[in-house]
């Protein structure tokens, strides 16, 4: 806000000071009022400085991306000022003057208008060039300009010494400013950023600005010794220094521009390369699709090295095409060229190759009609993993130079990174999907284990199950056959993970079908074996123990098919023992012979007896030294805590197990059931 106020204040001050000078002239000439010379000269200095400050603010606040717009501004201001000045001269010429006095006054006024316009032109040019010179500035140029600017503004006070521009004094005063101006004029970094067309435009602008500059300067010299001019406004270091600066600057810039013209195409190309590279990087970071990266890669490469054709092939891990992009070449020709390369034992997917003249290599008969001569082959790879190959073709003999090969390399490596990233992301998604599937399997598996174990008031039951993986292969189930007959089953499906869980689901189906029939335990096993023989994979098997509990007669019929033997604690005898019996796991023999390998066993229990059935995960759990938990430790825990509730016993077993292994993350699934007969 305050800068706006200053800006307006400066403008008003500029106009006022200029009008005052004109007024003083009038008074002096017509009314013969003597005004001190000092006042006019002070007003003149104020006018100079204020106009400069106005443009310092006006140009300084402008943000223009294109340098030619700056030059256009200088030209536009210069052009309009010179036009106005010429127009006024022309009008004056048309009006005939009768009185000598009038003519002198008019001449003075025209002169003043002219000077004002000239100062505007100089101020604008001065600050526009400041912008250009300080483009990509360093600290030194910045301070040098600071000194220069202050010197120039200070020089406006030289109009107090009315010295001639040809005098030695004048020359000495102007010299440091001029030298500093020349030094600063060589800061032409902005020229490098112009393209060919813009350079020509700049040249045109600068020539025009030079003409305007010289026109104004000529007027200064015309009036230099004119005695009719009362206050010589331009005959001082300030204006001359400014003219000189602008003149030198324009000339140097013009020369630099001219010298830069032939190389601008190289710069433009480099710039294009950088842009392509940036585009490629951007398409990577933006997460564009794979196809977009392929497209950007091949197009940037072909553009940058000016290839006539090319193709890009991306292969998957199995070496099959995942993508194929061809530019200005038929697939048939690609095929023919590849055939020639293959015959020459050139492996395009593993090593870069450059063939100066493909038509000259052996076996090239079939590609003689094609226009391509030189071929550049660059494979894409990341961490030694082959991703594909980029092939560029030129109709020229030996058409690729080292620089082109280098830039292609950097494109390819950048793109390889992107392609590799895409592959990693895909893998991650695949992995995520897999985990999602496992989660579903786990849900399914969880639903396979019985929710309620309260089926018989004569049995107190507690179950514990934990899967090592997200899904496990441990299975237990319970079925109430009649008021006094409850059937409990525990099993372990070989392996773990998803396939074990599915086998477990099959086992549950078989259990619930067979358990409805009035079968003995060994008959159950034989039928279960038959059923599983049809559906288990060759290397899978299931171990199973089944217990038919008759709470009326306190008797348990059971069969053990390869499963860990049950542990029985007899309350009366205070005796703990494993119930060993003969029995082969299910699915091991898949024919009638199985019957020979299974037997029924039986025991009679007393009230208060305990039975512990479990899966081998508990027995095989081992501590860091590799020692197994084993059957004996389990037996001791049950013996020590037989008086506790089944829940408490379960807690004791788990605590003892974890203490032994030193962790609660076991390698296998582990489950157990504690049954107290009442």
């Amino acid at each position, binding site marked *: 806000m305050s800068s706006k106020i200053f800006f307006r204040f400066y403008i008003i001050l500029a106009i006022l000071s200029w009008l005052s000078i004109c007024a003083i002239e009038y008074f002096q000439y017509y009314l013969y009022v003597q005004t001190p010379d000092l006042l006019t000269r002070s007003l003149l200095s104020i006018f100079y400085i204020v106009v400069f400050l106005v443009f310092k603010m006006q140009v300084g606040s402008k943000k223009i991306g294109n340098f030619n717009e700056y030059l256009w501004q200088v030209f536009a201001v210069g052009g309009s000022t010179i036009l106005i000045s010429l127009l006024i001269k022309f009008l004056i010429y048309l009006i005939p003057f009768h009185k000598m006095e009038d003519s002198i006054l008019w001449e003075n006024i025209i002169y003043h208008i002219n000077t004002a316009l000239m100062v505007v032109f100089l101020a604008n040019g001065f600050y526009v060039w400041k912008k250009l010179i300080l483009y990509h500035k360093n600290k030194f140029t910045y301070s040098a300009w600071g000194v220069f600017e202050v010197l120039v503004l200070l020089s406006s006070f030289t109009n107090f010494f009315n010295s001639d521009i040809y005098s030695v004094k004048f020359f000495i005063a102007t010299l440091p400013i001029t030298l500093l101006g020349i030094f600063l004029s060589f800061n032409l970094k902005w020229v490098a950023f112009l393209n060919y067309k813009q350079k020509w435009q700049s040249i045109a602008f600068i020539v025009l600005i030079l003409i305007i500059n010289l026109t104004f300067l000529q007027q200064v010299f015309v009036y230099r010794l004119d005695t009719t001019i009362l206050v010589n406004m331009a005959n001082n270091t300030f204006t001359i220094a400014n003219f000189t600066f602008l003149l030198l600057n324009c000339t140097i810039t013009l020369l630099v521009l001219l010298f830069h013209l032939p190389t601008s195409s190289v710069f433009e190309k480099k710039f294009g390369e950088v842009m392509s590279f940036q585009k490629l990087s951007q398409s990577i970071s933006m997460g564009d699709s794979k196809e977009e990266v392929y497209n950007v890669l091949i197009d940037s490469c072909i553009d940058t090295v000016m290839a006539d054709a090319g193709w890009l092939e991306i292969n998957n891990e199995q070496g099959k095409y995942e993508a194929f992009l061809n530019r200005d070449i038929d697939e048939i020709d690609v095929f023919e060229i590849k055939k020639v390369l293959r015959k020459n034992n050139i492996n395009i997917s593993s090593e870069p190759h450059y063939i100066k003249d493909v038509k000259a290599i052996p076996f090239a008969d079939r590609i003689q009609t094609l226009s391509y001569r030189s071929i550049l082959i660059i494979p894409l790879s990341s961490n030694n993993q082959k991703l594909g190959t980029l092939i560029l073709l030129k109709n020229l003999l030996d058409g690729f130079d080292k620089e082109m090969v280098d830039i292609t390399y950097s494109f390819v490596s950048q793109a390889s990174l992107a392609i590799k990233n895409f592959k990693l992301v895909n893998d991650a998604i695949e992995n995520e999907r897999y985990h999602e599937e496992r989660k579903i399997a786990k849900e399914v598996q969880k639903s396979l284990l019985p929710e309620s174990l309260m089926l018989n008031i004569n049995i107190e039951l507690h179950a514990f199950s934990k899967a090592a993986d997200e899904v496990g292969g441990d299975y237990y189930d319970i079925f109430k056959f009649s008021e006094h007959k409850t059937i409990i089953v525990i099993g372990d499906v070989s*392996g773990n993970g998803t396939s074990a869980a599915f086998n477990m689901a099959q086992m549950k189906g078989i259990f619930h079908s067979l358990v409805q029939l009035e079968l003995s335990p060994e008959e159950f096993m034989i039928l279960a074996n038959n059923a599983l023989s049809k559906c288990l994979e060759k290397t899978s098997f299931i171990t199973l123990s089944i217990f038919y509990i008759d709470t009326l007669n306190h008797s348990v019929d059971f069969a053990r098919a390869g499963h860990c033997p049950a542990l029985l604690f007899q309350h009366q005898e205070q005796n703990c023992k494993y119930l060993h019996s003969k029995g082969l796991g299910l699915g091991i023999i898949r024919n009638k012979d199985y019957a020979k390998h299974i037997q029924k066993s039986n025991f009679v229990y007393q009230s208060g007896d305990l039975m512990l059935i479990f899966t081998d995960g508990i027995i*095989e759990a081992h501590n860091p030294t590799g020692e197994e938990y084993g059957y004996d430790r389990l037996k001791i825990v049950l013996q020590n805590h037989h008086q506790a509730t089944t829940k408490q016993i379960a807690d004791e077993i788990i605590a003892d197990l974890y203490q032994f292994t030193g962790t609660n993350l076991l390698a296998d699934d582990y489950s157990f059931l504690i049954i107290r007969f009442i």
Partner: protein
Amino acid sequence: MNITTNKSEAYFQIELDGDLDASSCLLLDNAIANAIQEGEKSLIIDCKKLQYISSAGLGVFMSYIQDFEESKTKMILFGLADKVYNVFRILGLDELLKIVDSQEEAIQVAKI
């Protein structure tokens, strides 16, 4: 798991060293499958250095039982540690596989 095979005139020996679990059972499966392809009729499995066998490892032995019965191929295991033997026994495989104590016994059985 290290698996070394050793072929002599009368038999083909496979030595197991380490843990036979889900990750290593394929090695054993390959070794046995190769032996069969070579036309071997007597396989001797040296289990002296077998530390542990998982259900997947058992599955490999199990999967050949019926095939071997039909093709009259003999498979004899020897030198099992108690812990390992117990696993075979509980599963009931001790009745289906020929398990002996020493290499000499195994060779003798193989020769019959």
